[in-house]
């Protein structure tokens, strides 16, 4: 089967600063992949390149065989680490905004998710807590019928209980025929939802492992591996 995402020798420089260096990998359909790295390792840049929001300096990226660009945007749903909604909006407006903007937006699914995540349509986005805002962004991202979902730090600012709720929502509402890449540095709470993990450090891929294989052969959790790889 064709891969959902293919990256070939991707490099990215911001001025003279190297953000990514020769990154190549493929993601198959139906996978939940953890993109793990500490802050500043290049996770977000990589996600944005896959989403078509940042141009790589070198290399090729494609989604389901389509080169990343205008044509790939219908295939990819991106949950940014910072909200794209405007402060004047209420939850209802944000949903309507996405519905108008994306032909593949499923309003019924969005309503189910909002209910599941206990978000009120009438609430002002400016008054939402960080955790509630993440729930809203997750709803907006997963309510699109995409082939590839990119969730950039979906559990960054929430407490452990709320994290559980977000994981619940991901597993409850994700589409099993598509693939999901979740970037995070909070490995322990989330490692059990991954099929495989990709470790990125200083803009380079340093390891890629099937998580059950890692537990089986090394007797290690992803969290332990993460601490080993990133030990200073």
């Amino acid at each position, binding site marked *: 089967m064709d891969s959902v995402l293919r990256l070939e020798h991707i490099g990215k420089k911001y001025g003279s600063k190297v953000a990514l260096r020769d990154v190549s990998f493929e993601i198959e359909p139906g996978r939940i992949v953890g993109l793990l790295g500490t802050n500043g390792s290049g996770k977000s840049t990589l996600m944005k390149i896959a989403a078509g929001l940042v141009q790589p300096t070198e290399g090729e990226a494609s989604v389901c065989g389509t080169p990343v660009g205008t044509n790939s945007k219908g295939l990819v749903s991106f949950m940014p680490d910072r909200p794209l909604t405007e402060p004047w909006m209420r939850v209802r407006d944000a949903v309507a905004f996405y519905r108008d903007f994306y032909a593949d937006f499923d309003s019924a699914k969005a309503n189910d998710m909002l209910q599941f995540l206990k978000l009120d349509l009438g609430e002002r986005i400016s008054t939402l807590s960080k955790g509630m805002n993440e729930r809203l962004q997750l709803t907006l991202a997963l309510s699109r019928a995409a082939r590839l979902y990119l969730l950039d730090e979906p559990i960054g600012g929430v407490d452990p209980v709320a994290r559980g709720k977000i994981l619940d929502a991901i597993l409850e509402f994700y589409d099993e025929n598509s693939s999901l890449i979740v970037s995070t540095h909070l490995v322990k709470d989330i490692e*059990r*939802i991954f*099929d495989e993990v990709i470790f990125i450090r200083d803009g380079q891929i340093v390891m890629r492992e099937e998580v059950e294989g890692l*537990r089986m052969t090394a007797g290690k959790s992803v*969290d332990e591996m993460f601490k080993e790889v990133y030990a200073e």
Partner: protein
Amino acid sequence: MSIEFDNNLPIYLQIMNYIKRQIVSGSLTPGDKIPSVRELAAELQINPNTVQRTFQELEREGIVETRRGLGRFVTSEESKIMEIKKEMAGELLDKFVQGMKELGFGKDDIVSIVTEAVETEFKEQERKSFG
């Protein structure tokens, strides 16, 4: 359902053991329907492919069977369930005997200690049930 996972061990083995324990303890009885991959994945907050693998292994062992269009069910074969019980008992015993050997007990000592412990335990139970 609730289960404390150890992230250092394969998750599918832990879910297999968990389901086996439920069968042995009677929380799941022969012929019971078990949750779908999706339901169990969401409930345990586990990767769906891991749950899928768990079910495949349980099927391979004959503990769970798929009925087309209906879902997965606990086997109705009592002999299978007895097999699981024996397997789990074997694991407990191995661990126990190993532990006792490490403590320096010999064969006869272990037997007498076990006999005594079992007698005390059952006497206690009888005393309670007679009030």
